[in-house]
């Protein structure tokens, strides 16, 4: 059970891995906005291509990314059906009884699919594949630090994330042990109806909860002993520093954004 890794961090040395975690959050944000800026076939084409450029820059195998898109295939299919059958337009492509399929509908469906694909790929590249959960937590705390002034508990949120990340492997381990212990007492977790199976979870869940509370209690005391008193007056050992490449990446992303806006002025084909 020591092999648990959290998140989908893919260790590699790439342009994208080397960016400051805070910059990755900013870039992910701008990139997602970009996907909403595209309006016509050219800008959507460029957007679609950009996703593959990002994948190349991250050195993450394409197969791995495509596998992570699989769970959203249903949403994509749903979007296609919705747009193809329900969007009304002027140019009819297909007509049969009550079904009318318009050119506009097909194009909208295509654009929506590209938009969702780009959003998912962008967000997962910037925020999961090239960044460890703990670096993300740190980045969130340091990037959104100023929000503390308007009483948003940024530090507390980051602390909770850190502790959760720290203890998830411990709990997985513990669940395993408790399951073995109950199996040794003849508990059967594999057979029976759904209701019966829900019932057999009790001998696992109760000890797990009891243990979680005990751990929380002990951790709280240990933290108090180490002078923890919230985020006020707290310093950090590692302070993140932006480097030139971070700003270059930002400029590139902004240029891409401006470029997409400009492409929208081209009057080609269907415009969303």
């Amino acid at each position: 059970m020591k092999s648990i890794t959290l998140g989908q961090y893919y260790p590699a040395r790439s342009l994208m891995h080397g960016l400051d975690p805070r910059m990755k959050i900013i870039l992910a944000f701008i990139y997602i906005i970009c996907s909403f800026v595209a309006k016509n076939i050219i800008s959507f084409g460029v957007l679609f291509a950009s996703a593959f450029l990002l994948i190349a820059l991250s050195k993450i195998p394409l197969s791995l990314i495509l596998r992570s898109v699989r769970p959203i295939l249903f949403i994509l299919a749903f979007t296609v059906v919705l747009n193809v059958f329900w969007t009304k337009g002027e140019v009819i492509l297909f007509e049969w009884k009550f079904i009318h399929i318009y050119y506009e509908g097909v194009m909208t469906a295509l654009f929506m699919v590209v938009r969702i694909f780009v959003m998912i790929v962008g967000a997962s590249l910037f925020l999961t594949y090239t960044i460890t959960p703990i670096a993300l937590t740190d980045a969130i705390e340091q990037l959104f630090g100023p929000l503390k002034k308007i009483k948003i508990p940024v530090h507390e949120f980051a602390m909770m994330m850190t502790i959760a990340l720290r203890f998830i492997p411990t709990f997985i381990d513990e669940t395993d042990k408790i399951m073995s212990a109950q199996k040794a007492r003849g508990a059967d977790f594999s057979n029976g109806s759904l209701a019966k199976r829900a019932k057999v979870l009790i001998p696992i869940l109760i000890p797990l909860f009891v243990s979680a509370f005990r751990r929380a209690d002990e951790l709280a005391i240990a933290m108090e002993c180490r002078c923890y008193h919230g985020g006020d007056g707290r310093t950090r050992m590692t302070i993140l520093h932006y480097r030139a490449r971070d700003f270059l990446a930002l400029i590139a992303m902004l240029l891409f954004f401006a470029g997409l806006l400009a492409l929208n002025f081209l009057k080609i084909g269907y415009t969303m």
Partner: protein
Amino acid sequence: MEKENYFIKTENVCASYEEDDGKSCEVLRDITLGIKKGEYVAVLGHNGSGKSTFAKLLNMILAPDSGKIFIDGVDITREDMTEKEVFDIRRKIGMVFQNPDNQLVATIVEEDVAFGPENLGIPSDEIRKRVDEALATVGMTDYAKHEPHRLSGGQKQRVAIAGIIAMMPECMIFDESTAMLDPVGRKEVMDTIDLLNHERGITVINITHHMNEAVRADRVIVLDDGKVYMDGTPEEIFSQPQKLALAGLEVPQCTALIQALRKRGIKLEGECTTPEKCAKLIIDALGGSN
């Protein structure tokens, strides 16, 4: 007894906790003790003898019902302790607990060691220095970037110790810190504790029920039924096996052997708590009788 000579001083301390059914349960009665700077004290007692409560009183996790506690001359039972003074006490008296998993906060070893100093508001480069130094002291430098859940129990405890050392404490309390470890882990931790006391001059209070750990201390305090039951050097304490047995404790096998031989009328000079000393005593006695 003059307060100034003691780093930790308790006067007639009583403490109790409330059980779930509202009954109040007395755990410490009339504890009067003094512990000097640099002393290495083992606190023995069976489960429920009040050992852990005693430890938690010293760094203000719990408050006594009555009595006074002085840390470095400061009365910590005062009503008007400021928050800053409380943190100062907790910094001076570091605490390492039993379960190694439940005291590590961060997902990376060095981040965890930095946790205490960060709370104290120490500048970044100073924290870096302290963390590196603390990890070197406990011999965990090579593991600085590791995830705590992949370490062994003994290694986790050493990280926890490093986390306290980085706060520059004057005293460290080990609350059954080896109870969940295997012999290898226990040795790692005990060697670290010895080093902190002998080379760093840190006052050590080791709460344990392992007699073989208690013999490493300069002084042993036995708590029973919430009272100080015995107080002396390990040799003095372990030469009274009957008295210890009444408190639910036993003496190390070697000590028991020497005492049993003596009971049978064999003259053995001195006390012993380790196999080496025990063998030497017997060899010396045999040499004399031949």
